[in-house]
């Protein structure tokens, strides 16, 4: 096949810079009008671009109320922002990891209303009114959660990058009643990739917590 027969890059079909211009032109006008009334003329031009961006950003955001690790947050987020990026980039809750951003690795697992959820596949605006628990909210103060203790005891990690997702999944796996045998644990933990290959130890850790029978 000749190079010029190559299919376009998938992004190219969605090219939409003109739409973009429309929206920006509109916003520019509105911000411009608002600004004219208040600002001496020479400052307008310099401020225009920045103010325009701010106003654009304002209109692009949606209010969301979330309870994260027991704390209420009233936020304004862009509709396209994922729960994962909200946690990591805006709330500095970086314990929740990005391993793929496409729902294929489990590194971003959090609990939403007690259920394990891939936060990279969840838009933040869709979580309005929900309770989110991340790895940072699992321990009670200095007292580690039994699953965290078990991961340390059985060395259920190496680099530690997949670990928060593994632990959030593991806690849910036990709560769901899917941890009754090693094979069942393996099956129900297979959505969480560990490239360091700590699976054997992770299975041991979960088995122990399940056998411990604590209310987790």
């Amino acid at each position, binding site marked *: 096949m000749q*190079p010029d027969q190559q299919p376009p890059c998938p992004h190219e079909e969605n090219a939409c810079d003109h739409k973009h211009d429309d929206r920006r032109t509109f916003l520019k006008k509105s911000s411009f009008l608002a600004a004219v009334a208040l600002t001496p003329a020479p400052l307008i031009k310099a401020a225009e671009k920045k103010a325009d961006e701010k106003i654009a950003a304002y209109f692009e955001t949606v209010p969301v109320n979330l309870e994260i690790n027991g704390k209420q947050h009233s936020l304004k987020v862009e509709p396209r922002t994922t729960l994962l990026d909200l946690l990591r980039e805006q709330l500095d809750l970086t314990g929740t990891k990005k391993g793929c951003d496409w729902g294929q690795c489990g590194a971003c697992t959090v609990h939403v209303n007690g259920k394990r959820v891939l936060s990279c596949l969840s838009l933040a605006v869709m979580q309005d009114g929900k309770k989110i628990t991340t790895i940072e909210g699992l321990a009670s103060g200095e007292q580690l959660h039994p699953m965290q203790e078990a991961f340390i005891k059985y060395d259920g990690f190496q680099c530690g990058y997949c670990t928060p997702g593994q632990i959030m999944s593991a806690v849910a796996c036990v709560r769901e009643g899917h941890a009754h045998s090693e094979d069942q644990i393996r099956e129900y933990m297979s959505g969480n*990739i560990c490239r360091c*290959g700590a699976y054997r130890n992770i299975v041991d850790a979960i088995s122990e917590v399940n056998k411990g029978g604590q209310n987790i």
Partner: protein
Amino acid sequence: MENEFFFNYDTMPDPMDRVDGKMKVTGAAKYASEHPVEDVHYGVLVGSTIARGVIKNIDTKAAERAPGVIGVLTYLNSPKVPGYDAGGNPVKGRTTGQPLRVFYDEVIYFNGQPIALVVADTFERAVHAASLVRTQYDAEKHSTDINANLDKAVYPRGRSNDYTRGNADAYKTAPVKIEAEYIVPVEVHLPMELHSIIAKWDAEDKVTVYDKTQGVKSTQRSIMQAFKLPEQNVQVYAPFVGGGFGSALRTWPHEIAALLGAKKTGKPVKLVLGRDQMFTMVGYRPYTIQKFGIGATADGKIIGMSHEAISQTSTYEEFTEGTVNMTRFLYDVPNVFTRYKIIPLDVSTPTWMRGPGEATGSFALESAIDELAYALNMDPLELRLKNYAETDPEKNRPFSSKFLKDAYQLGADKIGWYKRNRQPRSMQENGWLAGYGMSTGTFSASRGNASASARLSADGKLVIQSAVADSGPGTATVMTQIASETVGWPANKITFELGDSSLPPGPTQGGSTTTSTEGSAVHAVSVALQKKLGELAIKASPGFSNAKTEDLVFDNGKVILSTNKTTTVSFTDILKHNSLNQVEVTSDSKSLNDQKYSMYSFSVHFVKVLVNPLTGVVKVNRAVSVADAGRIVNEKTAASQIIGGVTGGIGMALMEEGILDNRYGRWINNNFADYHVPVSADVPDIDSLFVNKPDPIINPMGAKGMGEIALIGFAAAVTNAVYHATGKRIRSLPVTLDKLI
């Protein structure tokens, strides 16, 4: 040899939990992209959509106008990288050729090559704007298919070409011989942490980066060379590294791109690769074709072996690895021939992936040994023992230590090797075919240069520092143990600090050398600290004033006078007597260059597989891996190395295969849904065993390396077991079910 300082393993407590475990299970550990940096902006790279040619036109206007965008860099407007124009290898890996110079000119070397960087105030805006960059190319015909280009194979420049011992063709006339071709496809490292960097210029000529790297000092050096900066003006942090397996061994174009983006925009830039970009921008294990010939007498004495490998590289760099090397010394064979060639293709440069060339080479060697054993009607383990090399047949010298026979024995007993029925396709379990296979692995053991400092404070805290990085093996834990044992100070009062280029120089974490190299520096500084404390005791502690240094004994945090054992003083009291708040020492440990010995770690893998006779599904049902890695400092983290290597080996054997669409030179399966890696359900119970006998030469701890040998050889153990189960020999990895039905 520092035998007088020999590390006393026997007094070590039970395997310690990881010192950074709590940070990792609570989410407190900060990886490269997670460090809070004020006013950080987001960089997203745009990749080329052709594999070879030049950029005719690149239109960034729409991207520049998109909301939040503060800069779009291409070769047309990028700040210059001074090191690029100096020629040579500014961002140097251990490859020859010219590493890719990002945003340097219009030339395209591979599909997905970074051609533009969009910087915006939020991640979402940067991603969107990156989709608006339009590029036209003058494309040229590209070649990305190794099999279609075999005639272009060349010897790597500057490398000795073929290796011949005795008669290269001897195997051909042996009474029993095997000739076969083995294929290892592209594999991609894919650590769970995406490659990431935050770059921040503190001044025109001063920069701080938080980076995913296996070597903070090597990254610092690369940036120094690229931007012509003095050492003190380049600060690299990597306190936690989310895996690497080799992909973070060198400095890649995206790292330089982030530095350029930050320079151009005047803002700190955070750049996180997408999972798809992990296939094109940070290396991979190259596709390798191997021809193997082996011949033996009827009673199993190997007469000759011939091992030829052809591997891929890029057009701009020559990547080479030790694919055929282990064939020269693993068995006692009089006639050996090896050849290694590479084919430049329009792809990105490969790089070392766990167990680098040896993982590839051992698949051929250890499969061929198994094939020969069946041809001889001999047990594969017996064949290996019959040709066991007591000394290194390549270099004609002794091994510093080799307990491979012990390892064979341990593993065979554990899995019940001799209880199996040796006939292929003779065993069944619940309707599945069962089979056993085994293999051997080896990797060089060595010790490089490193430094460490130790600072004991009056409150009893001991801080050891060194600029090493840890991508998972547990460096801080093992170093804490070495310091604790050598100084005689409780581990819970010791902190090992790493991942910071301003600390005393430590090694890059690669090639299974961290414990040996870094451990030697920690050992040296621990001894130096004791010595210093002894001198201070003589200077000011009651009862020590007339003592000689050789009369001092160090035990459990105290200095004792050997001539009068009731005269003792604790380390912290020594500081008090000297009115010191702290005492600090720094030590260097030199690389070991011993020409008298060959130094290698060894491993043995035993595997039991089950194969579904109808569907061809293969399950690794059990794995027993035994390491002869010298003395084991921490059995817990060492066992994790083994199970990690075995898990990687299961991937290599059964599922991992990067597939390129050669029409475009573009990856087809560049994500975790299509490029399969082992998940929990693929991994059985794994027994990790250690011979645990010290190597008397390599370092004061007697520890050889662990990380590579855990994987090397494993894939052959699986295919050998598949043969035993089914009678079908699979010579092309991975063993997907279509190859069995």
